[in-house]
């Protein structure tokens, strides 16, 4: 066991997969000589050379499309979005080319690609650097969407994403790169389509992902003090949703709170709520509660930014309300 920071866990995942398969390569802005803006690719340029760790010009749509072409012809690119928000410029390449092309081509081509990088609301980075693209991309057929949340799951999930033959959007969180955890010395992978039960409980199911998982665990002490026994589930897979794990929990608790960092309108929670109501309506004792970010561009001001995203005390309050049938 070795204590490892999340950015290093991600780097280990890439390094191990690159060592194993010479078709795997990384491309993006400052991934090579600079080592990546969050140092996820540090040292790989020196180890694997300029073609396998490719520093690209600042041309998101073109280098993303280029990676799709490389994937169609047998390579396994890992695209780093210096900030995932920048990949809005590559929306067409991610949606039309990576996501839909296998279907449109009638199965002629597969596109094994990982599109990864920091997403989410950081600390006063302003609206453009505080995006949650998972919500924007969830409607695109053919994409798998994964959000890691700990050093341990980051490594195991990224290795699986690199081995997957489909395009995988892989969200890291800008504030979790220094998350520290003991990682096994042996090699491991984690399934891309399985939710992670963070805490077992019987009273209420809290569904969350990425950084909000840690807001939930921060709230946990007070929730326990208040006498409640929540089950916390980290979705991990934002598309497809692991309705099996989610369903098992709801059949036990009959109450659901969704805690997400994306905006409420058209967010991951919106789709999740609809799926729960459709599949598990009879199991619910009350409405599904959604705690989401405000439907506004993320403001720069620290106080306003704090008001924009869900805080642990709101989770405590929501649990209390749902347990007292006040929702």
């Amino acid at each position, binding site marked *: 066991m070795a204590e490892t920071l999340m950015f290093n866990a991600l780097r280990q995942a890439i390094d191990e997969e690159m060592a194993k398969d010479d078709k795997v390569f990384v491309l993006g802005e400052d991934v090579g000589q600079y080592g990546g803006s969050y140092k996820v690719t540090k040292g790989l340029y020196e180890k694997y*050379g300029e073609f396998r760790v490719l520093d690209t*010009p600042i041309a998101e*749509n073109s280098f993303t499309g*280029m990676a*799709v072409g490389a994937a169609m012809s047998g390579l396994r690119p890992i695209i780093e979005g210096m900030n995932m928000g920048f990949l809005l410029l590559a929306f067409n390449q991610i949606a*039309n080319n990576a996501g839909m092309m296998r*279907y*449109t*081509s009638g199965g002629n081509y597969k596109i094994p690609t990982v599109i990864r990088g920091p997403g989410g609301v950081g600390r006063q980075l302003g609206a453009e650097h505080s995006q949650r693209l998972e919500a924007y991309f969830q409607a695109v057929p053919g994409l798998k969407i994964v959000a890691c949340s700990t050093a341990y799951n980051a490594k195991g999930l990224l290795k699986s994403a690199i081995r997957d*033959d489909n395009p995988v959007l892989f969200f890291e969180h800008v504030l979790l790169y220094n998350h520290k955890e003991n990682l096994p010395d042996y090699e491991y992978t984690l399934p891309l389509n399985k939710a992670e039960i963070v805490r077992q409980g019987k009273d209420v199911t809290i569904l969350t992902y990425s950084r909000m998982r840690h807001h939930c665990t921060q709230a946990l002490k007070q929730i326990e003090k208040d006498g409640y026994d929540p089950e916390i589930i980290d979705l991990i897979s934002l598309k497809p949703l692991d309705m099996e794990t989610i369903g098992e929990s709801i059949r036990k608790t009959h109450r659901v709170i969704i805690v997400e960092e994306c905006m409420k309108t058209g967010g991951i929670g919106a789709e999740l709520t609809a799926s729960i109501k459709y599949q598990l309506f009879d199991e619910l004792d009350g409405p599904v509660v959604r705690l989401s970010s405000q439907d506004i561009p993320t403001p720069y001001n620290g106080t306003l930014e704090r008001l924009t995203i869900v805080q642990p005390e709101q989770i405590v309050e929501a649990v209390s309300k749902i347990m007292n049938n006040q929702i």
Partner: protein
Amino acid sequence: MAEERTLPKFDYSTVKISKEESLIYYEDMVLGRLFEDKCAEMYYRGRMFGFVHLYNGQEAVSSGIVKSLRPDQDYVCSTYRDHVHALSSGVPAKEVMAELFGKVTGCSKGRGGSMHMFSEPHKLLGGYAFVAEGIPVATGTAYQSMYRKKALGEDFDQVTVCFFGDGASNNGQFFECLNMAALWKLPILYVVENNKWAIGMAHERATSQPEIYKKASVFNMEGYEVDGMDLLAVRDVAQKAIARARAGEGPTLIEALTYRFRGHSLADPDELRDPTEKEFWNARDPIKKFATYLTEHNIVSQSELDTIDKKVQQDIEEAVEFAEASPEPDKSELYRYIFAED
């Protein structure tokens, strides 16, 4: 009507072409022309749907470039006007026709349609319906070719050809990819089929520098203009660019001056193009021009060409029969092909 550009001179004294080779190019051009004529007929008879963009007039570009590649080895990337690029790439006419009919025997299994012809066995990267979006994808296969050579040490000299139109040459992806391809010396030919019109937008109204080939120079890239109605001129510039790409000397931008004899698509009323402009270009029919060259130089007799015309027409009739007789995709397979495992 804007003044026509002076066409680049081509030195025919340098032409070396065997009879066998001539017939391959000729047959491919005739196949392109007659296939598209049949598409128009089938569209108006309600046998194919959606937006259908025909290639009539531009055949010398597809045939001159693609038939100069190694079949099934080099990549070809197309646009929404992709039927003839598919045919030149070796996709059987019956598979292209069946795709247009939406049948499961089509090259994209009836999922793609007119604008999305794909064939991995023939290294056809596909028809891309958004203007310029194929350029990055083609740049990616070219990167892959270089990667195999330089990162994996393979003996590999595959080339990619990327077709697009004058409209795409004003899009950012064109400039971004020219930059990267020149920077990394990628083995790719960017072929602009300048047919003067992006639907109703005249080329001169859309660009500050109408001579597209000159845009290569700012990227330190080779750029050439060529008479896109002259198969031998296109073949000549293609052969040189392909040789450079295989030798690791980098990309080439080729601007082929050409014209579409029909509207943008079969839904286009084609009201903006001046009749005198159409006449000017119709008089320069690339198939007639090449046929005349072949007969005048006693490479092929007219009767041999007539035999090819008949054979191609017969192939196309068979393609239609095949498409008609083919089954629709199975409804139970609606969700198939979303993921790699399907």
